[in-house]
């Protein structure tokens, strides 16, 4: 067998898999979003042939995307605000943690790293389950805060509070944020810091002018790694709130998808979400491709 043909034989199963379960699956989503509705069963009918595409579903969603007042717009807006707040928390807490571990931890680096990875191995659902117990009206959080008069007795943390959802998102995804930031910081040579000190820069200005710019790529990667799943997250909301007033885009898609007759709308919202994220991601993909090329040299 020629090397080329053998290499092709190695690649073909994976290529078929990817074409079938990524390309064709995403095309199914598009075919549903741009498809019609069965007049009797009210279930979605996919339009496989682009000639048959109808923009009815997508248009319907687009109408509710009317700025500041459309239903879907409000959900998108809330989603963005929640995610920005959760990201801010991730950066404020996660960056110092990653920075310390990568630069100052010394011989503690290994053990600390293990503790940072541990939450990734404990399932997300278990970690949410833990907070549901702590945040319930008779839970340990209220047991501490009620006597201090921070919250009234039997305060319902889980009754649709934005603060609970945002904190939950942050708690759930921050371990995934820390790892790429750590990786980026650990890669860079601490001799740069010494050089900067040597050139007379203080601790503060060294951090500002050397460390921070060098960790930009890692911060960006960490942000993308956690922001993407947050845009599709409905389970954090489902467990910690369960009320539509704190619903996010993921909640919206999931709710539509659960009812047979609304699945086409779910598909249409998912398409809009993908378009929206594609626009957001474009600069990141460009910059990481560029960074990849630079490393490659």
């Amino acid at each position, binding site marked *: 067998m020629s090397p080329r043909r053998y*290499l092709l034989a190695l690649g073909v199963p994976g290529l078929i898999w990817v074409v079938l379960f990524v390309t064709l699956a995403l095309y199914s989503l598009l075919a549903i979003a741009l498809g019609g509705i069965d007049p009797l069963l009210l279930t979605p009918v996919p339009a496989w042939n682009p000639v048959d595409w109808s923009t009815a579903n997508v248009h319907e969603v687009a109408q509710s995307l009317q700025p500041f007042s459309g239903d879907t717009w409000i959900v998108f807006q809330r989603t963005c605000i929640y995610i920005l707040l959760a990201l801010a928390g991730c950066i404020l807490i996660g960056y110092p943690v990653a920075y310390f571990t990568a630069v100052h931890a010394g011989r503690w680096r290994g053990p600390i790293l293990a503790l940072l990875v541990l939450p990734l191995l404990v399932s997300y659902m278990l970690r949410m389950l833990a907070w549901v117990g702590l945040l319930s009206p008779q839970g340990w959080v209220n047991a501490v805060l009620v006597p201090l008069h921070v919250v009234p007795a039997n305060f319902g943390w889980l009754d649709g509070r934005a603060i609970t959802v945002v904190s939950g998102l942050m708690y759930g995804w921050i371990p995934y944020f820390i790892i790429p930031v750590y990786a980026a910081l650990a890669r860079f040579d601490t001799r740069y810091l010494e050089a900067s000190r040597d050139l007379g820069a203080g601790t503060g200005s060294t951090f500002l002018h050397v460390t921070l710019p060098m960790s930009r790529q890692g911060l960006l990667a960490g942000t993308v790694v956690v922001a993407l799943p947050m845009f599709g997250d409905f389970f954090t909301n489902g467990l910690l709130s369960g009320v539509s007033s704190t619903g996010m885009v993921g909640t919206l898609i999931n709710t539509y998808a659960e009812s047979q007759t609304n699945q086409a709308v779910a598909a249409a919202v998912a398409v809009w979400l993908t378009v929206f994220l594609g626009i957001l991601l474009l600069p990141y993909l460009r910059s990481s491709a560029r960074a990849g090329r630079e490393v490659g040299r």
Partner: protein
Amino acid sequence: MSSRLRHASWGKIGLVAIVVLYIVWSLAPVAIAFLFSFNAGYSRSTWQGFSMQWWTGSKSVFNLPIYTDAIRHSLLLAVLAVIITVPLGVSLSIFLSRWRGITARPASFLATVPLVVPELVLALALFFLVTKVNLPVVTLGTSGQVVGQVTFILPLVIVITIGRLSSIPTGYEEAAQDLGASPPQSFRLVLVPLLQPAILASAIVAFAVSIDDFVITQYMSSTSSTQSVPMLIYTATRGGATPALNAMATIMAVTTIVIAAVGFALYRLLARREQITDVPAPAPALAVSREGAL
């Protein structure tokens, strides 16, 4: 000078405090959830004394089929996901990194698409694929869940394996072929052994992600017999489930941690044994003394 030093050390103390508080914050709730699996009462939030009733006996996690089935199903999915994803991903990675042709670029883009769309979008897409296209074999249920998880995990395996492949010069395969190995032999006898650490790392990641996966597993599920542990936790948490739920979640977490720890230890061993020496530096004395120390 001394003021700056003191300043720097204050900063460092602050950093240490943040790290310690973060670690406590990230792990303490999990420990508490574990603790509640020993609660004497039925509550998962109010401590009512110590008891083993959720671990042994008729009310225990091991005696309720809904829990044991979920654990069994989760493990089944994880094992299948590892068995399929690792060979598929590793061979696809070899193709993507060694193929010199126009297919490689779009193919590697496609394979990593699941990393840049939210899992929910992929789950919905796979759900429509399975329900609207009559695929052979793949239906909602175990087969669909496995397919979905593999699709989701595949790009992670590819990222890990291609990273390692790019550090293995193509010269090793050429040397093998130069010495008379056919192309398949050169992959099997040289490339695969050199890829062992990456293969192991891929298997650990695939296992951990599969065990943890919720969205795709949920969307591709059919009857209650295809309920995985995360799915069960999701539906039971806000209901009146007993602390046996905490016990089940703990079992899964400990299983994953133990497997990952064993895998990591093995990885360290492999990575050390099969390090690729770069263009060698002439230091025979050093090499000998290092061996003497061993």
